[in-house]
């Protein structure tokens, strides 16, 4: 797959269809993959990678890159394509200046989970039919991909793209048995005290590194309210128990109805806080109260928080719902 | 109002659940009452006199035993005052007193006739005794 992509990207750069390519390149280690902009076929040849560690969602980089002259090529995994469509819907990215290449994806690997399996000294990885072959300094190890997948891939909702100009590889299907709200339901069934303890345990670890915000394709504000001294709620660092609550609730609220559930927030969190559970709570509530809605699925439907029905549920539904 | 009067008044109000202050003195209860002519104190007077605390007079009068509990006054009161409930409360306040049962069981045989349904006896027992 990687080679097909490299070939196609080089072609398009060379024939002038696109002026740059957003893709992935490896850092110091093979699992240390970062998004990167390539401006020539040489750069592609040298650094471009597409491996089981390419979980990163590239769509957000379009906000900046697509403003540059010429077209920008972006590689989109199925989940990334929804983020891209949502950004187009919100006028953050100009559709015409993007050449979207859809690539197939069967799930990406979580290096920590691989390590948890006792695999050390990773220096290469390849995937075939759901089996990962990890090349380590101690020799090759094989692992089923399903056991070491990123959280966001384990609860993947669809392997089908929302939008693209060109497809490389095979288009996947929607995941029929996806149960991405399982954990949310589990939390909902707890007592308020248990929930509070759960979230205190998680959120109190927050170090306010802002990784979740910086990676989030819905968090593309010109200036975040939490960075704006004039907003009255600017905070740089978590200093006490409430601040991270405030930050994460407001962040989740700001992306409510816009979050495509790409799962990047949880992937990048250095403290392993399951932040996607906040977003999924909003998605679940929205689906239940206002009808199923998938951000990025189509360009026209009004996002639920800028829409209403006169027959919407009253806020008091929150009090009744919990009663047994 | 002395303390005892006030206690009885409060008791009657609590027992009946009636808010006498809602009455606007229209007299529709008394205009509607089928037992009006048999009563010394009429439904609207019950409301007013309970308000004023003159419950002794009401308890002593035959009127409390003449209410048919037909609920016409309750149904028709424009203010939702429910005079019948007040009359019942005054009557209960009376018959619940020691030795004040209106209907003694030994009196009953004399009052019966062949056709009289049980219903009448049990209802009367419930109305006239504690």
């Amino acid at each position, binding site marked *: 797959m990687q080679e097909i992509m490299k070939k196609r990207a080089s072609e398009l750069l060379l024939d002038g269809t696109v002026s740059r390519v957003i893709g992935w390149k490896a850092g110091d280690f093979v699992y240390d993959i970062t998004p990167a902009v390539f401006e020539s076929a040489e750069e592609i040849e040298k650094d471009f990678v597409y491996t089981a560690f390419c979980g990163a969602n590239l769509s957000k980089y379009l906000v900046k890159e697509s403003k540059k002259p010429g077209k920008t090529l972006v590689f989109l995994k199925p989940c990334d394509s929804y983020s891209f469509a949502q950004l187009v819907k919100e006028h953050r990215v100009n559709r015409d200046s993007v050449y979207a290449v859809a690539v197939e994806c069967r799930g990406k690997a979580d290096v920590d989970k691989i390590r948890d399996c006792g695999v050390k000294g990773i220096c290469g990885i390849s995937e075939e039919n759901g089996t990962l072959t990890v090349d380590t300094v101690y020799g090759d190890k094989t692992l089923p991909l399903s056991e070491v997948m990123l959280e966001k891939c384990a609860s993947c909702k669809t392997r089908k793209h929302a939008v693209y100009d060109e497809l490389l590889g095979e288009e996947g299907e929607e995941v029929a048995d996806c149960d991405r709200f399982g954990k949310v339901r589990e939390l909902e069934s707890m007592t308020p005290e248990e929930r509070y303890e759960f979230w205190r345990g998680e959120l109190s670890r927050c170090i306010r590194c802002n990784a979740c915000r910086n990676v989030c394709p819905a968090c593309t504000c010109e200036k975040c309210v939490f960075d704006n001294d004039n907003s009255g709620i600017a905070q740089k660092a978590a200093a006490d128990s409430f601040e991270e609550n405030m930050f994460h609730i407001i962040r989740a609220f700001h992306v409510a109805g816009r979050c495509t559930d790409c799962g990047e927030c949880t992937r990048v969190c250095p403290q392993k806080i399951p932040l996607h559970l906040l977003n999924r709570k909003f998605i679940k509530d929205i689906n239940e109260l206002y009808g199923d809605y998938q951000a990025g699925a189509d360009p026209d439907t009004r996002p639920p*928080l800028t829409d209403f029905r006169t027959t919407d549920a009253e806020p008091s539904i929150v009090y009744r719902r919990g009663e047994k | 109002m002395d303390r005892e009067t006030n206690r009885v008044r409060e008791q009657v109000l609590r027992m009946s659940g009636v808010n006498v202050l809602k009455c606007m003195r229209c007299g529709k209860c008394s205009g509607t009452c089928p037992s009006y002519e048999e009563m010394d104190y009429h439904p609207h007077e019950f409301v007013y006199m309970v308000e004023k605390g003159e419950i002794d007079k009401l308890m002593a009068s035959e009127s409390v035993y003449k209410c048919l509990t037909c609920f016409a006054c309750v149904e028709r009161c424009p203010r939702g005052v429910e005079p019948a409930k007040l009359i019942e409360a005054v009557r209960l306040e009376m018959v619940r007193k020691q030795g004040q049962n209106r209907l003694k069981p030994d009196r009953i045989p004399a009052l019966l006739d062949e056709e009289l349904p049980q219903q009448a006896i049990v209802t009367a027992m419930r109305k006239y005794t504690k």
Partner: protein
Amino acid sequence: MQVNNTEFKPKIVAFCCNWCSYAGADLAGTNRLQYPADVKIIRVPCSCRVNPIFILRAFQRGADGVILCGCHPGDCHYTTGNYYARRRMTLLFSMLDYLGIEKERTRVEWVSAAEGAKFAATMNEFVQTVTKLGRNRKLEDLRCRK
């Protein structure tokens, strides 16, 4: 009504729409309908002006309960504002509940300009509910309580 800590006086912030509930509160005043002094009203032009940030901020600064009052659905002075507010608050309250915050600390009530009695009754009831819950310990910012 049993309240364990009779000393506890909750801090309640009420956001009131200028066109209905604020006028309803005025009417409650004009009619001398009593409700506890714990309730402090902030006037907003419409329930849709209330940002979830304001509500969290109130809790952060030590409020024990926050209530938002607006026009009845369908009667918004600006036609549609309260419909948006309704969705926003429903989701926000649900999220607070999800985080284990006592859901009774937050409330939305529709009170028209003519409903002075409803305003007073709502506030009495809300204060009672919040008083029973006691002090908000889960959301306050400890630096804000001296």
